[in-house]
């Protein structure tokens, strides 16, 4: 299960790299077309096309990272598209800022390779940070953001190495793909290290879905702001319950006074969970287990 997830994540990293690369090409093409035909003044020194390469790379990586979080939480297609759009938007902004900082550093007489690695690191940090920003219930998990930063550093390092030996491939395709891959791989490894529990749905429409408890707070309910969305079940509230990680223990607590949470068919307000416990929320039957 864990290894499949890691594979999934790193594959998405590759995709993110390819996406960034293709966006880079199309962005340059569009810029060329615009600056030669429509706005000749666009290609001045002030708005240089190369300032936007960071934005385009960030767009690709952010899009894929948000899509990944959404896919792993079994959101419906609309939800995935929304998340992708948000991720692309934020990724573009952060890419612009991060690579701008890198440019500034290079301008400040720092060697270009260090500047580039710095901007990759910042990009890794910020795109993981934004994905945390959208898990409304999670208490900003530090390790994951740091893992994004480490991934960025490693990715930048690989990129620089490839650049040194002129191995980055056509238009830096190999470099970009490897950098994206390493960011996602490190995030995946960090997530696998901190998650050891999961919940699976036993009955009803969402039968068979598995949710890894990879956050400090995990919310369950009907509404789309939840981590685990239970649609198609009777008597499930908007936000029905929370699963909270305290140390090594996971606690489940009822979030809404109207919604009953049953653990092993006993009504509870807050309770620690053991592996194999059966949770009943409305008519949905869930099982908590260790992986």
């Amino acid at each position: 299960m864990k290894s499949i997830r890691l594979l999934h994540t790193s594959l998405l990293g590759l995709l993110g790299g390819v996406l960034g690369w293709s966006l880079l090409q199309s962005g340059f093409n569009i810029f060329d077309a615009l600056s030669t035909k429509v706005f000749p003044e666009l290609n001045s020194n002030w708005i240089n096309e190369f300032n936007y390469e960071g934005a385009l790379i960030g767009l690709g990586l952010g899009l894929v990272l948000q899509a990944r979080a959404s896919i792993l939480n079994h959101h419906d297609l609309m939800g995935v598209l929304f998340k992708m759009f948000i991720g692309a938007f934020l990724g573009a902004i952060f890419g612009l800022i991060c690579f701008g900082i890198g440019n500034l550093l290079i301008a400040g007489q720092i060697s270009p390779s260090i500047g580039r690695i710095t901007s990759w690191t910042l990009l890794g940090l910020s795109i993981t940070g934004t994905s945390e920003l959208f898990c409304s219930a999670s208490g900003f998990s530090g390790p994951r953001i740091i893992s994004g930063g480490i991934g960025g550093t490693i990715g930048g390092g690989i990129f620089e190495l490839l650049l040194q030996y002129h191995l980055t491939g056509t238009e830096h395709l190999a470099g970009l793909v490897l950098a994206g891959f390493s960011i996602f791989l490190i995030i995946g490894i960090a997530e696998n290290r901190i998650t050891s529990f999961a919940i699976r749905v036993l009955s009803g429409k969402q039968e068979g879905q598995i949710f890894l408890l990879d956050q400090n707070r995990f919310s369950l309910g009907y509404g789309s702001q939840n981590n685990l969305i239970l649609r198609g079940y009777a008597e499930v509230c908007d936000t029905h319950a929370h699963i909270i990680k305290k140390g090594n223990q996971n606690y489940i607590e009822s979030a809404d006074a109207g919604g009953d949470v049953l653990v092993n068919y006993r009504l509870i307000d807050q309770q620690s969970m053991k592996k194999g416990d059966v949770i009943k929320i409305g008519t949905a039957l869930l099982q908590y287990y260790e992986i």
Partner: protein
Amino acid sequence: MFYHIGRLLRVCLLSVYLEFIILLKFSNLLLAANQVDQSYGLKQDVSHSAILGLFFQDNFFLKISQETFLTIYESLLVFAGTVLLVFALWLLQKPKTRTPSGPGFQLLNIGEQGMFIPLKPEVQTLELLSKINTGKKYRLSANLNRVTLTPHQNSFLLEDKNYKNALLINRRRSHRILLTNDDILDVGEMVLLYRNPDLSFNNLNRNLDGSLELPAASAKLKGPVQKGTPILTFLGSQQKIPLIRNLNTMGTSNSNDIVIESNEVASRHAKIYKVGETWKIQNLHIHETTSVNGRRIDQRFLQDGDEVTLGDVLIRFNISKTKFRQMPRQKIEATQKTQTT
């Protein structure tokens, strides 16, 4: 959906604000540079391009050449392809569920990939659990041949005739139960989920052509059932009947409010009526038994969750907490029509 849009708008505003601040900072720099130019006439030393050149140098970042490798259409094609791949991953991530027909047990132990043990509609013992091939060997108690499964009302009656079998049904010690959908059984180390896809709530609501035999019929309701209405759930078939009148009689006769089809139920067997804010059940037939929670009663007040037995029919009494829609009666009416003609 609206929540997402709201959040998106907030994020957009925030980021536009951020960009605005950044731009403002740069434009301030430019303005300052302008002023410096005008007031001191240092045009040769500090010019716009010099300041901009400092921030955005010509040795561009990733050193992508001016002539791009892909044309715009090709790159858009690659983009679309990657988005499609994300979509494919989304499809792959969807769990594949097989919906087996007929009742059976699903093995819930971790590592068993949703193994399904079908049950034949005949009297059998739980001994069959020791015969199946599992990935891991599970410890089971030796007396499983004393636990019988008897077909009853579209479901199975589970009876444990040996009290040394530590059998948990819905995580409670129990010896006799009519299995309903999504019941969980702990047998030794095995955790089993009883399922009967034909009798799941969705299927029951959809399946109105009469292919399912339902044990009871009542007056047809108009509109949803309000909160606070008592509901009788027939165990086994999971049929739900709301009590909309203050006095409800139950029995096999057609003159009853709730018509129950069973050989062990009298024509007028019992009545459930409202007393103030509570509900009371009364036995009407001297030779037949009505019991609540396993005790034979003459009359008794009912509480939420009580289990009522009329002859061999098991009913659970619940007060509804949410609105729900009742299933129209179909099967019994149809059979009665054929009988009368």
